[in-house]
């Protein structure tokens, strides 16, 4: 499969398309763009932008826990910590009532502080810095497989529960009256976001991951009159800024994730200028 992909990309008449690491990175970026586009569309609808940001920051704590446990690859520690945090935020948000951003901010501060405390004692800051900026060029074929598996998971969730999430996002009581299990849906979606963000963060970087989730959806909202169009436009913006960002970062020798964000931001501004309402 991978070999076939590389041959296909190598047919492109560009210098970058001849390098194995770029061929691989292109596939990874396309996969990540689809993953983020899909998730971002619902995240923005559910007004959960701050939530996904908090989950991204919690990756730090996951790394720290991994270091303390002496794990070579902290991925599982990261995923488990992010899932626990996502569940805690979702449950606390309900219990506390009031404003969700206070609850989320509280948990994020806690997670980041805990991560810094543990890392400063263990001296693992060097490992952490790789997660700040991320490096899509370091991705392996096996890890691309992981991204594709995540897309399959998100698609399965969107196939089964999209309509229910739509009602929950509109009004919890209204959703409840339609016999939708609001708590279960909220929790499931939060866990899905936590896992997807945490697994992919080392290739994209903590600093920009949330922008890649939020910006394409925010850009698509200006012109979309229904959810089908919204998802399509979100995916289009996400794919365009992903691929354009990768290629631009090759020529400019810049960090790929951040370059993709600049393209997404440009899309956002263009759509803002040509919005319907």
């Amino acid at each position, binding site marked *: 499969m991978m070999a076939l992909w590389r041959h296909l990309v190598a047919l492109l008449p560009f210098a970058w398309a001849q390098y194995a690491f770029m061929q691989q990175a292109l596939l990874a970026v396309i996969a990540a763009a689809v993953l983020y586009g899909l998730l971002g569309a619902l995240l923005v609808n559910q007004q959960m932008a701050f939530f996904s940001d908090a989950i991204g920051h919690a990756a730090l704590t996951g790394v720290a826990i991994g270091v303390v446990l002496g794990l070579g690859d902290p991925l599982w520690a990261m995923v488990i910590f992010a899932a626990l945090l996502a569940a805690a935020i979702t449950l606390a948000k309900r219990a506390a009532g009031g404003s969700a951003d206070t609850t989320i901010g509280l948990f994020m501060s806690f997670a980041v502080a805990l991560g810094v405390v543990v890392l400063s004692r263990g001296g693992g800051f060097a490992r952490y810095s790789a997660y700040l900026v991320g490096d899509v060029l370091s991705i392996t074929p096996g890890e691309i497989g992981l991204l594709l598996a995540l897309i399959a998971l998100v698609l399965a969730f969107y*196939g089964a529960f999209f309509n229910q999430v*739509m009602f929950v996002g509109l009004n919890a009581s209204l959703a409840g009256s339609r016999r939708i299990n609001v708590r279960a849906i909220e929790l499931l979606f939060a866990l899905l976001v936590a896992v997807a963000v945490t697994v992919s963060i080392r290739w994209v970087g903590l600093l920009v991951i949330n922008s890649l989730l939020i910006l394409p959806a925010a850009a698509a909202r200006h012109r979309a009159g229904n959810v089908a169009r919204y998802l399509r436009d979100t995916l289009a913006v996400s794919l365009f800024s992903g691929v354009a960002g990768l290629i631009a970062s090759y020529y400019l020798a810049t960090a790929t994730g951040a370059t993709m964000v600049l393209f997404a931001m440009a899309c956002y501004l263009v759509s803002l200028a040509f919005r319907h309402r």
Partner: protein
Amino acid sequence: MNPLPTTLPACGGCCSKLERLTVSFGKHTVLEDISLHFHCGELTALIGPNGAGKTTLLKAILGEVPHSGALRFHDQSRQRPDRPRIGYVPQKLEFDATLPVSVLDLFAGALSRWPAWLGHHLLLRKRAEAMLAQFEAAPLIDRTLGQLSGGELQRVLLALAVTPVPDILLLDEPVSGVDLHGMDLFYKMVSELRRRYDLAILLVSHDLPEVAQYADRIVFLNRRVICDGPPAQVLGHEQVKKVFGVDASLLAALPRRDPAEPPRAARHCAGGAA
């Protein structure tokens, strides 16, 4: 799932029964021993002062607050063990005005399990259109929710609440903030609903003139059921006069906007428990 029987008039025989419902938050009892019957084809208005527990009662019926007592649905032919199916129109929907969800998306989500983001079958669109047409809302089908006026949104939500037709329809001050024309249109439709469909309606309202003209029956709630009966009787009750500061019994003498059958039976009315 067939939500669109164009006419399935009220049978008059089914009833959602609230039995000895009590809600307490800690030591504080918010609702005490509420027993009410909601008959199909009947519009019951729930009135009471602020803090009387009207919203809490709706939330208890929706299953959102812990409570003792039960809500049961009784059918003429059989007694379903199930809770009644509930339709709900919230007071004022808080949502982002740029939410890219169209009216059709919502109906598709209500009518089918097919995920709305994959587009809609033409048949589904027709069914949604037919449903909306009954609420003078068919032209709104491709608008996003943020593009609707207050009155339009409430009509769409009303149409959605009866898709599919529930056993009991809960309306929580559904027209607060809607202009006079929108309000009249809304009540006219609610009033028609109870004749066209086999469902009971529970309306929470502050608006005594509207209630007097459209309700078949009024329940005056103040943590307990203070009074339960036809509008003329409840609006003349001492405590209603005290809380609302007017002798609302005059309102009951106004011509009814809705020429439906008169209320079924006068229920007893007492100062204490119902």
